């Protein structure tokens, strides 16, 4: 399984979400997209995005100023 990664660091709302949506299109169903961002608002936004779209937010964590999200495409 190839790893799908999106670096959205340095981008502000709503770019991480827009880029994630675009990136998810090329992720096969059931596989995971890893997104990193530096926008603190993206923590709440990725949770809301996944709730609305039905994609699964497998994990949401942060290390220093970098936030990391694992999104499983449904």
């Amino acid at each position, binding site marked *: 399984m190839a790893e799908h990664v999106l670096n959205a660091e340095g981008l502000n709302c*709503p770019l991480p*979400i827009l880029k994630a949506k675009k990136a998810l299109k090329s992720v096969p169903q059931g596989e995971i997209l890893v997104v990193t961002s530096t926008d603190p608002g993206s923590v709440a936004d990725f949770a809301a995005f996944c709730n609305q779209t039905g994609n699964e937010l497998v994990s949401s964590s942060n290390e220093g100023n970098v936030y990391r999200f694992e999104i499983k495409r449904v």
Partner: protein
Amino acid sequence: MPDNVTHEEMDNAKSMSIIVTKGTLDWAYPPFILATTAAAMDINVTMFFTFYGLALLKKDLDLKISTLGNPAMEMPMMGMHMAMPNIVSVIPGVDRMATTMMKNLIKKKGVASIPELREAAVDLDIRIIACQMTLDLFELKQEDMIDGIEIGGAATYMETATKSDINLYI
């Protein structure tokens, strides 16, 4: 209907319409941010551009901000916040300066540009309607506008609005 979308998904799909009435750089943000984000969240979005909002559909975007009628406006500057009282708007070059400051801030903070958001709106298949009456009023031609837009009037908007879960006026 695309093949990969089930009937259930179509039935569950939410929809939103936005009337866009303002054409300055600052006021271009709320409608484009909400519309593109909603579309990314699988919400069907229609944007109806009327009056000054129509400027946001021009091929050549030259958006500015005005300090006039914007009494709460403050720009960060050297760790402080500089107020922009209405009165400074009469000084030649102030609005140009405020526009340059805003564009620099947008770049520095990783905020999307309006052309970038508009492109995303088209990519996300947002339905874009330009107001026919405004085109006539301001003597604008469809050739001056970006491709992929519809031309329509109040009735076109209302038909969409009655079927939408969310209707916004910005």
